């Protein structure tokens, strides 16, 4: 949570005109001072504003609040406040979390019993809202209407939480950033053209002739797999036997892929079918060679 985050929240609250603020009670004088202070500049005291705006029910706080100089309050509300400028505010901003309901958003502690304070962050938010709307904070009960208010007006950006001025390097880097993202987006559109072209090329080729997993195999092995697959049924159990020159890992994976749901067993004795690849492989006992394709053959157990 940071100043920008609070600013966003405040803008949203300002747009919606709703806020979940409890029922603090302040004197009209306080608000009058608030607005009078717009034209003055002084040193910052956030805690004083906090005491002014928040619940002023305890007498000692009220006495303290009345001692607050209008200049201090005014500065907080009208001038920019940066989180780094006041250690207490920075801490409270960091402690606060935002929660959003369908209708509203509010600042709160991360959990109800948290010991970390957030009231300064809350105060800044309310001060911003006061300045934005020229209204007392929602939920604030005025003892009597204020009749005299000096207003200096507000700028487009939310006062009280204005950021640091935008420097030329920042603008240049931001423009470069947007440019590169734009290039990436344009690249995607060109990619779509490539994709469409590739699809047209593929569509012109019959499915069986398209480069597939068998493009990894040699022509003879590829043909062998096509032929063998048509002869192995789903309930068959097959064993693989490898001779000279056969790539065992690759051919086993292809066999698993092509012959599934038929499953491999470890020994020919347990198998209904035997598939052999490579040179010099003879059928084991009880297996008749059924089909031969190049250096590969398929054998079936004799019944």
């Amino acid at each position, binding site marked *: *949570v*940071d100043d920008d*985050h609070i600013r966003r929240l405040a*803008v949203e609250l300002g*747009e919606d005109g709703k806020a979940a603020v409890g029922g603090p009670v302040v004197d*009209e004088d306080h608000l009058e001072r608030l607005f009078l202070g717009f034209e003055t500049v002084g040193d910052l005291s956030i805690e004083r504003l906090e005491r002014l705006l928040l619940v002023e029910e305890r007498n000692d706080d009220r006495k303290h609040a009345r001692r607050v100089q209008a200049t201090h309050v005014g500065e907080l509300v009208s001038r920019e406040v940066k989180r780094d400028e006041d250690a207490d505010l920075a801490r409270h901003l*960091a402690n606060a979390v*935002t*929660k*959003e309901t*369908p209708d509203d*958003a509010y600042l709160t502690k*991360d*959990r109800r019993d948290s010991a970390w304070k957030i009231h300064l962050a809350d105060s800044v938010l309310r001060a911003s809202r006061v300045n934005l709307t*020229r209204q007392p904070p929602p939920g604030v009960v005025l003892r009597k*209407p204020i009749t005299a*208010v*000096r*207003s200096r*007006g507000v700028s487009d*950006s939310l006062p009280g939480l*204005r950021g640091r*001025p*935008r420097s030329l390097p*920042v603008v240049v*880097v*931001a423009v470069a*950033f*947007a440019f*590169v*993202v734009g290039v*990436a*987006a344009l*690249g*995607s*559109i*060109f*990619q*779509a053209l*490539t*994709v*469409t072209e*590739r*699809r047209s090329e*593929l*569509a012109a080729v019959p499915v069986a002739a*398209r*480069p*597939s*997993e068998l*493009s990894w195999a040699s022509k003879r092995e590829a043909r062998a797999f096509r032929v063998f697959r048509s002869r192995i049924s789903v309930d068959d159990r097959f064993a693989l036997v490898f001779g000279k020159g056969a790539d065992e890992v690759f051919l*086993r*994976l292809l066999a*698993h*892929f092509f012959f*599934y*749901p038929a*499953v*491999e067993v*470890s020994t020919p004795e347990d198998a209904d079918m035997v598939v052999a690849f490579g040179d010099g492989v003879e059928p084991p006992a009880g297996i008749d060679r059924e089909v031969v394709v190049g250096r590969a053959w398929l054998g079936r157990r004799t019944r």
Partner: protein
Amino acid sequence: VREAASIALLYLAMSVIGLGAVYVLGIPLTRKWAATVVGLSPLTGMLICGFVATTSAVVEGGVHPRVVLPASAGLVGIVLVGARRRRLSPWVRRPMRHSRLLLALEAGLLAALIGVGLSVLRLSAATPLREWDGWAIWAAHAHALYVEGTTSGPVFTDPLYAGGHPEYPILYPTLEAMSAHAIGRFDPLLIDVMPALLLLSAAVATWAVLRTVVPPWLAAAVALGVVGAPALVTNLQGNYADGVVALMTALGVLLLAVWLVSASPLALALACLYLAAATLVKAEGAVFAVAALLAALVALSGSRRPLRPLALASVVVLGPALVWYGVAKARGVGDESFDFAALADPGYLSGNADRILRASDAMLGALALSWSLSIEVTVLALLLGFLCRRARPGAFLATWIVLSFAGLVSLYLISTAEINWHLVTSADRVVFSLGLGAFVVAPLIAIDAWDTTTPATPRRSRSATPSVRKTTVGRVASRTP
């Protein structure tokens, strides 16, 4: 047409489940959040169905949509009833005040996104399986899950099938098996339609999340960049899982970054969902997820934000993957591609130190070749953060990149495979998550920094003219914005 309609119907059903899930999690069903809800629903629904199907396959319940869809809907319903009104708080959206021109630009970019996504879908439906991992591992697992519906068959338990890596998580193949059920057969030509749907859904989800924290036109441009990233499109057409891991990781890291700047529990919950999905797609997903959680920890250091949510998130993200690998170990299958004990062996590490340089060189080369725009966007965003003195979000991204990179290098260091072969066959793919994650998170960092600045000469409204009037509170003296 029949197959397309069947898959579309399945996709629609999963999207409806996703809609319920995002509502249950806490995104309000209001006009303000409508785009976010619509954008997040399809992918969230797919992932929830994927989680349910994975669990169902492990307990031998089957992965048919007839089982998975009602179970997923029931799960969402139970959470809805159980959670009642205690839903998670969403993050605060960036105020949107845009001209019609910018809104039209966003709409145009979105239309282009959908167009690119559909063209990728059509190509996927025509592309046969030709990449090694695509057919030997993922399609083979999907076929086994389609036929048997469980992980207790020989494909996942028999040592003869060890070459197909039966220890790999099955979130991705269960989704493919569901699409096979939808069309009524296992079709090697159509099996990679599911990754294309994941790509389109993730791109839309990226737009939906990003537009709440950056200008919507920028969010749409970034999402368009995601859906048409050439390396990603090619990878997913090969039915690889690396692209899917990258999509899940990128969204998870983005939402973790949103959580860092907003402290929204909902952002953290969604980040957990996507990062957990990444860990359940492929083992590298766990590397990126751990790196993201550690990076968040680093970014939070020095703040007073409680770390308990992050600790809980770590359990949620890594728990399912740990359970999966535990189940795989119990079945007697384990990944022997990596020797994790070697990490504690100084002799091995010193003897193989050259692998660090070779792996780094290969991965940096792959990043420069396929993700150069992402590198540029990231560097510019970090520079913007530096210029605007916004350290935390940038620190998160930079730390995540460094830790992820270090994690990948560590894997190559302890690889039992021949290192040159291992690098040649995988280095270009494992960096996808880095490239895509950085590309998606960079706009958040850039706009986060940009928003801390205001024009050097602010334009003042008419009401800014100093005036002194007498009024009553409630009757505003000068018009205010």
